[in-house]
């Protein structure tokens, strides 16, 4: 019993000191303590589990942590990150402020905003004390420190970059025909009824598509940087819903059913049911080609005026049971080794959050040598990144979408 208590006290001290430097130890000494305490811990990592590539990558991370740090990683596969938020909220309501069931959550946007607002996150300021933080491209990637307009305050550690990219099969449709804006997409859908759709909100990618249209259609984009509660939501969002009213009759299945998520759309692209699909990861198509899931004639495109771009993160709940283990895991995720594998389309293809200039020449070289695949646009071809609206927009848009289209006729 005493031994147990001592251990849990030590965990508290080390994880606390990581955020406060209270002990006056040098940061490397503190980190050594964290690593030591993490030994033998089991980290329950709640992460969306709908993609095999990503699941495999997470399994690889788990093997590495087991070998290097004696940490067991359990991937709790979610179909919606909101479920993890819900679990932590329920634990807080039930007074379970320690030994929570979740140690790490793959998160961003409105889920992060909601957890931060409700005080459900560990921190602030633990991320910048991770040893591998030195490689992170804080300077040139503003979304690493501002997540959907909300300052991250060191309460979530970046994992990867996302950019909305569209895909088509060049064997069926020529690149010239492909739309270059939401308006052109609307026209294209009218000419090619039944060949476009988006995942049913509140799927993350589906809701992101709605935001892309909103940004393009709204008159004053700066309004979207404010909370949707502070502006006239009905008026500002009207162009989006006018657009959808016009688009829906020409969608796949006339918008009476929707693909469940973006991997489902890839399957539908392979089946020839859809002609244009999209994802938040530029390498989705290349990676699917490598796995024989899509034909090698699939190509990517974006809108020249820009598409949504953001960063995805990992965060630790305030009542996590294995905080030290979660910290070591978060640190491993931003190591050059883990980031390199993640960007390789053979495994996942998710763009790195690291700055090439901060890496050793050898490490940077490895990144540059990655074969991103035939269907992946080069970073300079991806076009400008549009800023994410304030998270309240996503929530409100989803609500209105459900009320308006949730019961199709």
């Amino acid at each position, binding site marked *: 019993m005493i031994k147990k208590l001592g251990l849990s006290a030590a965990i508290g001290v080390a994880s606390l000191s990581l955020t406060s430097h209270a002990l006056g130890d040098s940061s490397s000494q503190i980190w050594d303590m964290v690593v030591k305490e993490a030994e033998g811990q089991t980290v*329950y990592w*709640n992460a969306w*589990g*709908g*993609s*095999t590539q990503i*699941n*495999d990558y997470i*399994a690889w991370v788990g093997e590495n942590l087991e070998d290097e740090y004696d940490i067991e990683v*359990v991937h*709790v*596969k*979610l*179909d*919606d990150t*909101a*479920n993890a*938020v*819900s*679990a932590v*909220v*329920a634990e807080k*309501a*039930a*007074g*379970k402020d320690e030994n929570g*069931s979740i140690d790490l959550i793959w998160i961003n946007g409105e*889920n992060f905003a*909601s957890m931060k607002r409700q005080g459900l996150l560990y921190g602030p300021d633990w991320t910048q004390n991770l040893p591998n933080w030195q490689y992170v491209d804080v300077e040139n990637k503003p979304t690493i420190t501002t997540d959907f307009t909300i300052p991250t305050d060191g309460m979530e550690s970046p994992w990867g970059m996302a950019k909305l990219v569209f895909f088509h099969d060049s064997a069926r449709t020529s690149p010239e025909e492909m739309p270059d804006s939401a308006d052109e997409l609307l026209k294209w859908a009218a000419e090619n*009824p039944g*060949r476009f759709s988006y995942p*049913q909100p509140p799927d993350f990618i589906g809701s992101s598509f709605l935001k892309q249209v909103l940004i393009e259609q709204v008159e004053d984009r700066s309004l979207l940087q404010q909370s949707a509660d502070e502006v006239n939501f009905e008026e500002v969002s009207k162009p989006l819903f006018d657009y959808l009213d016009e688009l829906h009759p020409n969608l*796949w*299945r*006339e918008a*009476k*059913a*929707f*693909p*469940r*998520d973006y*991997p*489902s*759309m*890839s*399957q*539908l692209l*392979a*089946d*020839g*049911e859809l002609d244009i699909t999209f994802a938040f990861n530029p390498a989705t198509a290349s990676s699917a080609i490598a796995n*024989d*899931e*899509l*034909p090698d004639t699939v190509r990517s495109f974006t809108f020249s005026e820009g598409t949504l771009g953001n960063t995805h993160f990992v965060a630790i709940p305030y009542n996590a049971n294995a905080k030290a283990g979660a910290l070591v895991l978060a640190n491993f995720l931003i190591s050059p080794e883990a980031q390199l594998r993640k960007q390789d389309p053979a495994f996942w293809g998710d763009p790195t959050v690291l700055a090439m200039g901060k890496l050793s020449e050898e490490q940077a070289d490895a990144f540059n040598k990655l074969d991103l695949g035939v269907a992946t646009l080069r970073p300079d071809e991806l076009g400008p990144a549009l800023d994410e609206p304030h998270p309240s927009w996503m929530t409100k848009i989803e609500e209105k979408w459900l*009320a308006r*289209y*949730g*019961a*199709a006729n």
Partner: protein
Amino acid sequence: MLRYSPFTALLVLAVPVLCGLAGTLLPAFGYLPALGGTSFSVQPFDTLFMQTGIWRSIAQSFFIGLTSTALAVILVAGFVAAWYGTRLFKKVQYLVSPLLSVPHAAAAFGFAFMIAPSGFFARLFSPWLTGWERPLDLLIVNDQLGLALIAGLVVKEVPFLLLVTLAALPQISAIKFSHLTQSLGYGRMAGFLLSTWPPVYRQIRLPIFAVIAYASANVDMAIILGPATPHTLPVRLVGWMNDPDLKMRFMACAGACVQILVTGFALLVWTLIERVTGVVSRKLAAKGNRYTRDWGVRVTASVLMTTSALIVFGGLLVLALWSVSGLWQFPNTLPNNLSLKNWMRALPGLSGPLVTTIIIGGASVAISIIITLACLVREQQTGRSGGNRALWLLYLPLLVPQIGFLFGLQLFLLSVNAIASWTALIFAHVVFVLPYVFLSLSAPWRAFDKRYDSIGAALGASNWRIFWHIRAPMLLRAILAACAVGFAVSIGQYLPTLLIGAGRFPTITTEAVALGSGGNRRIIGIYAFMQMMLPFVGFLLASILPALIFRNRRGITGF
């Protein structure tokens, strides 16, 4: 010890259901202190009925539950009436029986792969016959009337209803009845339906009720095949229960109460239909028509029955094929290339859920079989079977919609900090496994020739000894078969595993449904294949083990 066994069964079955129901009912009326609900109100119901399309979701659950059961019952009754006692009947029976152990989710995936516009049927006939180079934009799977879901439920429930009918038939001396009606000049089907079916029906009534309850309240098949704009009521309830906005849980519980009413109403309407059919069939019988020209109907019945079995088999085969396929685009009937790559990639991830599935299944079966045996031995000693009341109790967990008491049970376990523990999860499974184990074993147990016991007793053997040396070995085959049924039931459990395990005990089934949402057919193929194989291995062991154990006592395997 033994005298408490019926009480234990009661405890294990009724307590979770009743606790769970209470745990659902209180929050539905606003009371759940842990989430800040300290006073009673009807607010949760108000919010529930303000949700978009809520009435449609409710109507769908009701309509789908009744229609699918009615169609399945008609199909089974028609087929049995048309062919019972023939060689064709035996063949179809062998074809259909294995399908009983196919979990609902796997059957649903297979079915979806067959009937989708880019599915296997369309591929078989494209483009050479249909001219389709591209799949048609047709809403087949996830259609708004729920027809795909109804069809999926029918093909999945037919094997179950056929088997319970088969178990009932010998007790009615159906063959003699049919000889009688035929000598009176009745057509085969009319003779059977007017004379044999009513007593058979009485015996399979409870299983039919269980089918209605499942069909009106199921989640796993409805996610895969059911309407999506809006989803059926049970699917929406699960979503609300998991919403980060905890206030939604009050509404989810209110919805679960509505679901119980919907299922109850469906059962009520069913009993009305029973009466009407009874009146009509008596009228028909009184008229005295012989209905001898039933050849067309008989052929239709056999074609429909065979088709429904073949669709499930075909779906499972296509699933298996997807799991080893490379690129496989429409309208190709077969994949361009085969590879084991998908399996190699999936295997490391499979082992965890596989072990969990086996542990939960094994433990819940072990507990269930011990309770069942204890109850049966006790019944044998006292001569009291508990009769109809006990039967209703057994069926309780199968008649109350899972969602109705699992929400409450989850909230209850959460508040006592027992959520996501092995014990809670295994006992949640026992609630569903025990009824099936008991129902499978009780018939052969009661049919056992008591004179063996008497001989044993006359030779001075104790009850204990009689059990271990006479009953258990001679009934081993039946005991193992009951275990295999229980194991299959445990494997198929989706909602209890998800809710009581809090997502931390992934099993093959929860993984299959979670990954199925990702639409990757290769992975779905692998998981559905595993889902199918586990019960199959269970039944295989159940049939091989007795032969191995008694290889030097040939006579004993006859039971």
